[in-house]
């Protein structure tokens, strides 16, 4: 009997909260908020808040065209592999004091799980056989190399700050540390890392000005060019979920100390913070900047953003 309950609980975690359904709703809502606010910033009316939901269900019902040049199996599996890994990732990120499993994977696992959706996009685009996708995947890969260095520096800085002389490598450990002292962002030595993280989020999600890989106006959405119907819908969903997961990761690292004790309320607070972060680091930057060239993007991340993160790591390392 207990085994059955366990299995049901796991299914609940995977499929409902904080798994698929939760990220599905939150991700698409964030995408809706992003579009609405962006439109208001540009003095447009903008689509309704639920437009991403309509888009998703519409795409699900459309015909899927697979080009002749494509490798059919890879083309079809890629978006779903990305979605699956995003759902797993969300199960590893604690919602304040709530984490869906008694243990928690450490930050290395998170980094690697976060690379899988990008790899899925790359492999899927590559499998579609289009030269536009070829250009797109090359840029996506360079973007990935660009943000991976600052991301690891940020995570190590926070882990060192949380652990001190002890070894602390897990996200739930970092959250527990914040609850026992105060918010991560309140430690001044972590502020450069927080800034760097705010800049890593848009690149990881792929919003302007860091959307070089998908550049609609230039290479027609790059890796996605041949995609249509349900797989396209899943890729769009992946982008929306990534928005939610990356902002949640920020919340967990730097604002993890908030805890009301009620899981539902915690989830609501998480969503509110994520919406704020989305507006701050994606909508706002999107509204005021133009797309970067890929070599400038790389340079920006390996100098300024990595520099901020490294500064934080060094400050933390010398004990400040």
């Amino acid at each position: 009997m207990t085994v059955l309950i366990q299995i049901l609980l796991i299914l609940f975690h995977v499929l409902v909260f904080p798994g698929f359904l939760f990220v599905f709703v939150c991700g698409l809502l964030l995408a809706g908020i992003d579009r609405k606010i962006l439109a208001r910033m540009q003095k447009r009316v903008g689509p309704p808040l639920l437009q991403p939901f309509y888009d998703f269900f519409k795409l699900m019902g459309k015909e899927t065209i697979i080009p002749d040049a494509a490798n059919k199996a890879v083309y079809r599996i890629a978006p779903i592999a990305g979605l699956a890994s995003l759902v797993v990732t969300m199960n590893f990120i604690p919602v304040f004091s709530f984490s869906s499993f008694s243990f928690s994977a450490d930050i290395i696992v998170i980094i690697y799980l976060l690379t899988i959706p990008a790899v899925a996009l790359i492999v899927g685009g590559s499998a579609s056989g289009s030269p536009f996708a070829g250009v797109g995947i090359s840029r996506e890969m360079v973007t990935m190399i660009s943000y991976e260095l600052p991301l690891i520096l940020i995570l190590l800085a926070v882990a060192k700050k949380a652990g001190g002389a002890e070894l602390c490598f897990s996200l739930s450990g970092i959250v527990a540390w914040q609850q026992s002292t105060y918010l991560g962002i309140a430690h001044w030595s972590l502020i450069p890392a927080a800034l760097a993280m705010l800049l890593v989020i848009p690149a990881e999600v792929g919003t302007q000005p860091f959307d070089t890989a998908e550049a609609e106006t230039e290479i027609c959405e790059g890796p996605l060019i041949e995609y249509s119907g349900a797989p396209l819908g899943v890729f769009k969903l992946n982008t929306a979920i990534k928005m939610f997961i990356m902002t949640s990761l920020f919340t967990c690292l730097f604002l993890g100390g908030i805890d009301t004790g009620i899981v539902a309320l915690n989830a609501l607070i998480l969503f509110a913070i994520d919406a704020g972060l989305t507006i701050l680091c994606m909508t706002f930057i999107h509204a005021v900047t133009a797309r970067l060239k890929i070599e400038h993007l790389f340079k920006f991340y390996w100098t300024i953003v990595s520099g901020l993160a490294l500064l934080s790591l060094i400050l933390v390392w010398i004990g400040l």
Partner: protein
Amino acid sequence: MMNIMQHFPVIAVMSLFLGAFLVEIFGRKNKIVRNIITMIFVAISFLCIIALIKPVILDGEVISYWLGNWEPVNGYAIGIGYEVDALNLFFAILVVLTFTLSAIYSLRYMEKDDHLGHYYTLFLMLSGGVLGLVLTGDIFNMYVMVEIMTFAAVALTAFRNYKKGALESAFKYLVIGSVGSGFTLTGICLVYMQCHTLNMAQLSSILANHLTPTTILALALIFIGFGVKSFMVPFHTPAADAYTTAPSSISMVFSGMVNKAGVYGMIRLMFVVFMMMDKTAMQILLAAFGTITMFVGVTMALAQHDFKRLLAFHSISQIGYVLAACGLGTALGVSGGLFHAMNHTLFKGLLFLCAGAVYYATGTTNLDKLGGLSKKMPKTAICFLIGAFSISGLPPFNGFVSKWMIYQAAWSKGVETNNFFYVFVTIVAVVVSVMTLASFIKVTQAVFFGQPSEKCENAKEVPLAMRIPMWIMSALCILVGIFYNFINTNLLTPATNAVFNATNYIDKMMGSGYAAAAGVSETTIEPAALSYWDPILWLILFVIILAAVCIAILTGKRTRGEVLVNKTEAVDGKYATFFGGEKSEHSHVSGSDLFWGFKKNWGGYFKFMQGMHSGDVNDYSLYTVIASAVIIIVIFIFIH
């Protein structure tokens, strides 16, 4: 039973050498005789090593064998001894696995070549050399095996001597390899001069607490010698050429066991015989060379235009991971290093076999001339993707677990010792991993996806005998990644224990109590706690995969129906690739300039590295000598 068992190590080695002679005598003319002889002796060797798993790893015994029954007299070992503990056996398993699969693959892969009698003779000599190297308990015997291995490897590098550059790369390998062997031999002579014995168990107990300046010099020389054999930067230069021009079955053997032999020598001599790895200076030296190796290897790989040359630089880079992990000197680090060595054998072997399959089907490995092979060779493409994901360390493939252990070990070492150097190692290791992924994306795009190029129009899937080793390797990549806990408790922990506790190793050879009398201390190694992934997560993953498969089937069904109906009627190019309204033409985005956004920023670095890899063997010898001088000086300054 025990009495029979103790003959197994020596039978495993001798059967390969015997096979080499028999192939040369009886197998020169007749293909079937040759293949049968080869397979029989390879199988004998394979089974002998597999049979040793139970006593050595499960029961924790050490098996020893004195050649000619020359046992120690008055506490001095005179004869040559073979000694197998968990560490040797771990490497021996990798070795027999590699050459067995390579032999099966060779049957079809090499069928178009001439003089196959020589090929199999050299192949068996190489296998025997490496297996002897990892099983022997005698340091001079080790040197002899190194020489056999190097010369067989050199000859096999030039086996396809009609290929451009084959002889040249063999020559480079010969020169740099001989320099390495020379250093090893000098080191061994110095050790013999000081200790009057060549038996490693006895040396270990003599050297444990008594290092003289001469033995420190010997340590430095042996370090360099095995550094050359494991192709550590800057000794890596012959590897890139040799792996490229050798037949793929041999490239697989090179990366699967020949450079592992160097790693084995490094671990055995540095940890067990000299017991130097508890010194901070040695740790940093090895970890620093490992870090440089992984970085230089991967950046050079990004600049390559040839499939096998790219894989060769990745081999160098992955060995960097192994050396850096061993250089941490902690139990977790050594476990991670050994695990990565094992995974490297699996996935790099697989990737070289895929490269061989591509060469077999198209006759080229030039990335700019290939394209669209996944439609012609879907099975090879799947194997390649598994290998590529494994080497890039995506979960849940095997590369992830070992890389995870290495990061964890490096970071915890950094936190424990409060040394920023280890944080640097961690960061470089993560970045190198992403770059590895990048360069495999490049190969995937250039070779398997996109539009079929001229060379690939008539490519066919390779024969079954070549696919079987590829499937075995792929399956092992996935299984090891999933059941890593089984590997950890049953292979890695005993091997790590053997690395840190020489007592058993010494006592078995020299009589019990010998190690304690010499003052060799014992430490207990707990199994590394690997907790990133729990049984519960299996269920999660299962549920997700099930759901994903359901979705894929649902979306797939609808498409298939419509495609069948519409395909013939679609005159408007509905299923053609989008070209923005232009006439569709062959426009494959090939691999060579895929990452120019990255390379442009690093232009100076790439220019410098390309200048350094001049292809001139004089330059390469110079790097070897300079690096050797640096190593000797560093060791002399920091170790007292």
